[in-house]
């Protein structure tokens, strides 16, 4: 039924099977839209947020999604700026994943603010001293860059490509992609950093506050490092997932292994500085604020989170990715990438939730945050939105340039 839209020389599942899959996705998206609508209509009282937890699941999800979306800018940087041509196999996928992450995060962000209709105030009345202003500006600009990077892929659709204007426009965009890759790298560096700065500048919150360099707290640099150490891991995971579902090899193995190797080095680099930061924070920053290291682990937000973040989801995946034989093993590679991504989610969780759970005043109690369905639904809905975009892109666009070569049809 839709065969005219499917790229030439590749095989896709039947339209019936695809429609059934879309039905499931739309079901989940519908649930997310309902949750989001309830929050917009009734207000944030529909969530588990309160005056202790100004930030909750929405912000945790946003930060995690944006960090994991860093695969787009970093793969783009390696492909176009550094010149790692073998990554061209996977760059389209990285861009689509990045686009999903950034647009998805902005959808959730719309629900997160109490007055969504005033969202434009961030551009009209910007406070240049606020890290959040930097985040808002850079994320918006980078989403535009990602859209520009996504457009040539969309225009390569079999039917759209027949229109000469689209064909030449797409071709010319490809030619100047290095400019967008460099712009994306610059913008991404700053907003990933600003997201870390968001917490590090809270000088009245001992859990989050960090000293730093010039106007940037150390969390600024650590968030950049952690994003580029986990974003490519998500790209690998999504690639493996698409290959698994389609039962085809879509990307040359060397491209995946190169990305895995780079991820291993980046994760190790990040972990070295993260351990140093934790040590300095525990022995210098916290004592100066009158807090001991053990005091910041209270209630359900115990030391186990630190061990899970840096040990299980830090050292283990870094070790796997650093050892060539280990990362060449498909199962171990997937385990390492899952752990790497989980580690970054935990990192964003502790900076958001654990940070706010701890009362600063001695007369207050440790608070526990439990998200409601209206928070889970839009969050899961964003994942479904990602699945939708990915499914459509895979079916109708030449997302994997080597697919035909790797899977010849007799």
């Amino acid at each position, binding site marked *: 039924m839709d065969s005219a839209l499917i790229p030439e020389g590749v095989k896709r599942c039947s339209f019936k099977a695809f429609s059934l899959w879309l039905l499931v996705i739309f079901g989940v998206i519908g649930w997310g839209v309902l949750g989001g609508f309830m929050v917009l209509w009734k207000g944030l009282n529909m969530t588990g*947020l309160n005056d202790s937890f100004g930030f909750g699941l929405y912000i945790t999800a946003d930060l995690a999604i944006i960090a994991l979306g860093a695969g787009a800018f970093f793969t783009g940087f390696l492909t176009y700026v550094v010149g790692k041509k073998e990554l061209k196999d996977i760059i389209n996928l990285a861009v689509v994943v990045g686009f999903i992450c950034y647009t998805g995060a902005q959808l959730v962000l719309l629900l997160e603010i109490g007055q969504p209709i005033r969202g434009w105030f961030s551009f009209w009345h910007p406070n240049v001293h606020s890290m959040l202003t930097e985040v808002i500006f850079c994320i918006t600009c980078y989403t535009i860059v990602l859209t520009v990077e996504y457009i040539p892929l969309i225009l390569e659709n079999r039917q759209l490509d027949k229109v000469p204007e689209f064909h030449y426009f797409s071709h010319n965009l490809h030619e100047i992609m290095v400019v967008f890759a460099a712009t994306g790298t610059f913008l991404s560096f700053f907003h990933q950093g600003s997201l870390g700065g968001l917490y590090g500048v809270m000088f009245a919150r001992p859990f989050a506050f960090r000293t730093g360099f010039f106007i940037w707290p150390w969390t600024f640099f650590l968030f950049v490092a952690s994003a580029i150490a986990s974003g490519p891991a998500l790209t690998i995971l999504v690639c493996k997932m698409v290959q698994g579902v389609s039962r085809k090899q879509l990307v040359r193995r060397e491209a995946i292994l190169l990305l895995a190797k780079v991820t291993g080095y980046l994760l190790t680099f990040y972990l070295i500085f993260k351990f140093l930061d934790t040590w300095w924070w525990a022995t210098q920053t916290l004592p100066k604020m009158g807090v001991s290291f053990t005091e910041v682990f209270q209630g359900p937000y115990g030391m186990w989170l630190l061990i899970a973040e840096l040990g299980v989801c830090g050292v283990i995946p870094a070790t796997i990715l650093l050892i060539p034989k280990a990362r060449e093993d498909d199962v171990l590679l997937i385990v390492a990438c899952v752990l790497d991504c989980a580690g970054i989610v935990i990192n964003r969780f502790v900076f958001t939730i654990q940070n706010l759970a701890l009362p600063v005043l001695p007369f207050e109690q440790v608070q526990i945050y439990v998200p409601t369905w209206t928070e889970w639904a839009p969050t899961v809905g964003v994942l479904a939105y990602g699945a939708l975009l990915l499914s459509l892109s895979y079916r109708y666009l030449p997302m994997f340039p080597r697919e035909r070569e790797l899977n010849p049809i007799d």
Partner: protein
Amino acid sequence: MSGNKSSGVRYGMVIDIDKCTGCTACSVACQQENNVPFREDETNKVRSITWMEIYQLDNGMPYPEYRQAYLPRLCLHCGASPYPPCTFVCPVNATHRDEDTGLVNHIPVRCIGCRYCISACSYHARYFNWWDPKWPKPMEEMLTPNVSPRMRGVVEKCTMCVHRLQLAKDRAFMEGRSELEEGEYVPACVESCPAKAMTFGNLLDPDSEVARLAKSSLAFRLLEKLGTEPKVYYLSSQDWIHKLADKVM
């Protein structure tokens, strides 16, 4: 401090904990004066708006060493330089410190409700409007005309009744004066305290009562180690209160 020395005015408050009986008159007066909304069920304390919170403190000792006290906590209008913890994080300039008075203000009609300021405040002094503000019918007529009620989805906090400052300035202008007399501008909480435990005024005026009390050996501020430089001081002759007030977490 807050860089407002040029104006010669830095409003602040001193609260004598030894005198405070915990009657909550200040809290009620604040609620009334500033049109702070409330709900029928106010049991959820992490969602109710209380600009003036009264904490009940105790020394944790068994009888007969047991001691208790009440600590009223409002926005402490931090004087940290260059910015208080809450203002510089706001992405839309909806909250700022007036460097002529030292008062930290909030502009609800500009607030986008991101709650970053709530997260940055160590004193839990900022509140979010989780619901539309509603008052029972007869009470609507008792709202203070000089204070706009805030809408759902924005943050609010103690303003030290800044509308009273504006009224006092207007009065002084009509009388041909450029300066305010001591006691001409007083927040509702200070006015309502039956025990006279609260003193308000210009901390930079060496002749003012508030400046004299702030320099007392009994004076302390909450969580001084954090460097927030609050402009609300507390007085107590009890050591355990001093120690507790300086304990972070």
